[in-house]
C-alpha cells in the first residue's frame, strides 16, 4: 500500500505546530498502525530528520498509552480498538490519512503526537481509590457482590485511561473517564464508605483540570476502545446529586 500521511508536528509545548505531509510507500496491510509509523520513523531517521514522537507501550490494547486522532476518529475508524491494535487493512491504497494528537487544554501537547495526560492522574488522586488496606486477595465468598453489580463494575474497570473520550467529546469533557473510575468502586462493597465524598472530589478535580462540562452528546462511548457505556455518566450524576443534597459539600476523600 502507498499512503500519504498528514501528521501534526510540534517541536515542543511552546511551538505553534502544523500539519506536515509524508508519503509512505510499501506499507503492508498486515502492519499495525503504530508499525506503519515505525516504518516512517526509520526512514526519517535514515534521512537525518526528526522522527515523529508518539506514545505507545504494550501494543496489545490494554495499557492506554497510545492515542491518536486518525482521520478525525479517536483511535481510528475501527470501533472498540486502540490505535496499536488497528491494522492497515482498515485503509485503502492511495489514501490520505490525517494524524493528530488529542486536542484538549487539559492534555497539553509535549511533542508531535504526545500529550500530557497528567490531568487524569489528578482526578484519580482526588478519590479514585479506597483508603482501607485490603491485603491480599480475599476469599471470594467472604464479601458477597450481586452478579449484576460485579458485571457493571467490571465493565467500568475495563477503562484504560487513554483519553479517547476527551478527544472525541465536542465539549472536551472527561466525564466518561471520571464516571468509569467512580463506578468501578461505587458498585462494590469496598467502595461504599467513601462513595459520596469520592464523587465530589473527583468531579471537582475534573473541573479544575480544565475539562469541559458533559452535555450528554454521546460522542465518547463510540470512541471508547473499551466500550464504556454512556449510562455510566448517569451513575455519576445520581451519586453527585445525592452527595450534594444529603451529605453536604465535602471536598476530597
Amino acid at each position, binding site marked *: 500500500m502507498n499512503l500519504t500521511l498528514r501528521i501534526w508536528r510540534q517541536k515542543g509545548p511552546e511551538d505553534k505546530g502544523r500539519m506536515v505531509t509524508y508519503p509512505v510507500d510499501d506499507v503492508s496491510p498486515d502492519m499495525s498502525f503504530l508499525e506503519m509509523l515505525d516504518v516512517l520513523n526509520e526512514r526519517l531517521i535514515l534521512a537525518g530528520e526528526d522522527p515523529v514522537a508518539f506514545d505507545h507501550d504494550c501494543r496489545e490494547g490494554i495499557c492506554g498509552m497510545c492515542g491518536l*486522532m486518525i482521520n478525525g476518529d479517536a483511535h481510528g475508524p475501527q470501533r472498540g480498538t486502540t490505535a496499536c491494535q488497528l491494522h492497515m487493512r482498515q485503509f485503502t491504497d492511495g489514501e490520505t490519512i490525517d494524524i493528530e494528537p488529542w486536542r484538549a487544554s487539559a492534555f497539553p501537547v509535549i511533542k508531535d503526537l504526545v500529550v500530557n495526560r497528567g490531568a487524569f492522574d489528578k482526578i484519580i488522586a482526588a478519590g479514585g481509590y479506597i483508603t482501607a488496606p485490603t491485603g491480599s486477595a480475599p476469599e471470594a465468598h467472604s464479601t458477597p457482590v450481586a452478579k449484576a453489580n460485579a458485571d457493571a463494575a467490571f465493565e467500568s474497570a475495563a477503562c484504560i485511561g487513554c483519553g479517547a473520550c476527551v478527544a472525541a467529546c465536542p465539549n472536551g469533557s472527561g466525564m466518561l473517564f471520571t464516571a468509569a473510575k467512580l463506578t468501578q468502586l461505587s458498585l462494590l462493597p469496598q467502595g461504599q464508605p467513601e462513595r459520596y465524598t469520592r464523587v465530589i472530589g473527583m468531579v471537582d478535580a475534573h473541573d479544575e483540570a480544565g475539562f469541559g462540562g458533559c452535555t450528554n452528546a454521546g460522542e465518547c462511548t463510540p470512541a471508547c476502545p473499551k466500550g464504556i457505556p454512556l449510562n455510566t455518566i448517569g451513575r455519576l450524576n445520581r451519586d453527585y446529586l445525592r452527595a450534594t443534597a444529603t451529605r453536604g459539600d465535602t471536598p476530597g476523600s
Partner: protein
Amino acid sequence: MAVTGILLALFLIAHMLGNLKVFTGATSFDHYAHWLRDIGKPLLPGVWFLWILRTVLVVAVVAHIVAATVLARRARAARPVKYAHRKKINGSYAARTMRWGGVIILLFVIYHILDLTTGTLNPVGDASKPYGNVVADFAPERWYVTLFYTLAIVTVGFHLRHGAFSAFRSLGQQTPRGERRARAAALVFAVALCAGYLVVPFAVLTGLVS
C-alpha cells in the same frame, strides 16, 4: 439545565393544550384567553397570577441561558486548538444543534410575544380578540409567518428530543434499559408537542379554522 428545562417543557405542554382550544370555536378560545388573566381571582387581584407565572418563566429562561453559556464557554476553553480533520459528530442531529437551536428558539419567542401577546407585529393586534389575531396571523397570504413558525417549532422539537433525554440523564437516569426508554420518551414527547403546535397554523391555512 435540567431543572429549568423541565419547567419550560411543562409550560410548553400547558401552552399547547391551550392552543388546541382554537378548535372549540372563537367564543370558547377567547373565553379561555381571558380566563388566563383571571386565574387566582378573587384570592389575587386580576393578572397577578399571570405575572407570577411570567416571572417564573423568565427566571427559568435566563437561568437556562446562563447555564448553557457557562457550558459553551467551558467547551471552548477546553479545546483551544481545533482539529484539522474533524468528522461530523456521530451523535444525533438534535444533540449537536442544541446551542444554535436555542438561539433560534429565543429569537422566535421574542417575535412570538410581540406578535400574539402584545400584538405589535400582528395584522389585527386586538388583545380582546385572540382568536381573530391567530386567524389573521396564519392567513394564506402571510405564508412566510407560517413558514417561520413551522421552522421554529421543528427547532423546538429537536431541542426537546435531546433536551428531555439529557435532563433525565442529568438527574440520575443510570441503567441501559432506562436509557432506551428515556430516549424513546423524549422522541415521542418532541413529536407530539411539534404536532400539537403545528396543527393550529395549518388548520388556519387550510381553512379548518376561520
